């Protein structure tokens, strides 16, 4: 009979055995998968904790930043107020100082004229000295006024050919240039720049006239050069004059600092202060390099971008322009900021109840 076929039974046995093994293997696989899953779950949990940590850190940084920004803005406001007060003070004081000066000058003149016969040569000389000093004081006051006015008045920023400014300055200094036999070399092609035309002319005028004034050489040579520095224009004015000691590199930009003896050099010593203020108004920088006896080089920079000079452009716009960030980055950052704002708000509300 087929039923009692022992071979068939063996076959089943084998088959069952292999099925059992398969099952065990699958069980093992499921088990391993479960373990893996748990591992992954743990990993995920850790990552979520990390993320939460980062989020908190970000929040803290954002809060810190907001706080620093507020402090900075507050300090900026105080500084601006103090500056304004100082400017107003300078302005008012200088006007009030001028009035008595007029009287001193006029009455000295009246004595010189009306008492001509009674005055000795010496007496007359003394009165002339009084007048010379009122004249000098008037100049000092006017320079003070000029400096305080620089900030009070707004700037007109327009596109200007630098070459035109130099031509204008050369015209104004024509007499001194001819008299001292000064050679002015324009070394590089000078660019078109955005600036306040009148004020930047003042900068070149001051620097070039200083280069002529403080020059003891037989043949004074002044070199005007330019270097394109990416976002900045960099100019220099180099002379072969008397030069400046290193210890005075900063001091010369302070008001009424004169390194020469009063009799040697005309002027009040406010020129470079005015120059520096003008450059600062343009958001640029000015400095000097020099060797006594060999000459000085005055460097100054001015941003190329009109909005940067006007201080209207935000840092984000500049980053965007230079492709350091994309619109998406900014959008994401803004969204994140908003989201965090909501979370903060939610947390605070939660705490409140």
């Amino acid at each position, binding site marked *: 009979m087929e039923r009692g076929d022992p071979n068939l039974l063996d076959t089943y046995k084998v088959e069952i055995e292999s099925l059992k093994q398969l099952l065990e293997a699958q069980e093992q696989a499921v088990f391993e998968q479960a373990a893996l899953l748990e591992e992954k779950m743990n990993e995920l949990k850790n990552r979520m904790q990390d993320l939460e940590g980062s989020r908190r850190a970000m929040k803290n940084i954002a809060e810190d930043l907001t706080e620093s920004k507020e402090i900075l803005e507050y300090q900026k406001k105080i500084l601006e107020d103090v500056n304004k007060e100082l400017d107003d003070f300078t302005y008012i004081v200088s006007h009030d100082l001028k009035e008595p000066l*007029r009287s001193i*000058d006029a*009455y000295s003149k009246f004595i010189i004229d009306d008492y001509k016969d009674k005055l000795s040569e010496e007496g007359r000389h003394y009165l002339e000295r009084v007048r010379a000093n009122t*004249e000098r004081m008037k100049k000092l006051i006017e320079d003070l006024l000029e400096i305080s006015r620089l900030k*009070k008045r707004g700037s007109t920023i327009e596109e200007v050919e630098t070459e035109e400014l130099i031509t204008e300055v050369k015209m104004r200094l024509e007499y001194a240039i001819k008299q001292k036999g000064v050679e002015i070399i324009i070394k590089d092609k000078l660019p078109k720049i955005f600036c306040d035309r009148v004020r930047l002319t003042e900068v070149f005028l001051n620097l070039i006239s200083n280069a002529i004034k403080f020059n003891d050489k037989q043949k004074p040579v002044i070199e005007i050069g330019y270097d394109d520095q990416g976002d900045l224009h960099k100019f220099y004015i180099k002379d072969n004059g008397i030069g400046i000691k290193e210890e005075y590199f900063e001091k010369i930009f302070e008001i009424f600092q004169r390194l020469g003896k009063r009799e040697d050099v005309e002027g009040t010593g406010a020129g470079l202060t005015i120059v520096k203020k003008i450059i600062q108004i343009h958001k640029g920088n000015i400095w000097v390099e020099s060797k006594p006896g060999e000459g000085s080089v005055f460097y100054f920079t001015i941003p190329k971008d009109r909005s940067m000079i006007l201080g209207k452009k935000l840092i984000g716009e500049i980053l965007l322009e230079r492709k350091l960030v994309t619109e998406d980055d900014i959008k994401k950052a803004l969204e994140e900021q908003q989201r965090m704002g909501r979370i903060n708000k939610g947390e605070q509300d939660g705490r409140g109840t």
Partner: protein
Amino acid sequence: MAEEHNIIKILLVEDNPDDIDITKRALKEAKVINKLWIVRDGQEALDFLKHEGDYKDLSSSPKPGLILLDINLPKLNGIDVLGAIKKDSNLKRIPVVMLTVSKRDEDIIKSYDNGCNSFIQKPVNFENFVEVVKEVSLYWGLLNIFSPNGQEE
């Protein structure tokens, strides 16, 4: 020697006695033939021009051909006086020259906005001031042609 119409009638509005001295002397040295009236504050200036207060007597306050007006004045400041003059139909054609030691942007703008004819800064140096007084008086007193009824009294 000078004919009546060549004499410039000047009203000086000035509170500082030194400045009055100096302006008088400058007019003299500039050889400007003039008749000078002096008032010491803003209110007095308007009284003079409108024949009010101490100036009800017309002979004491003739209509000037030129007003030299300081800005820093007691009671009413120069800009307010200027505004009042330029709003008054009887006075508005009298040339007003702001003569001041100030060169504040604000003062300059307000002066022109209120209709001043000229804004001049008083120089510190006396000789320069003489030049200014001479030129101002000659220009406004002789050279400038006025509106036909502006100079009528």
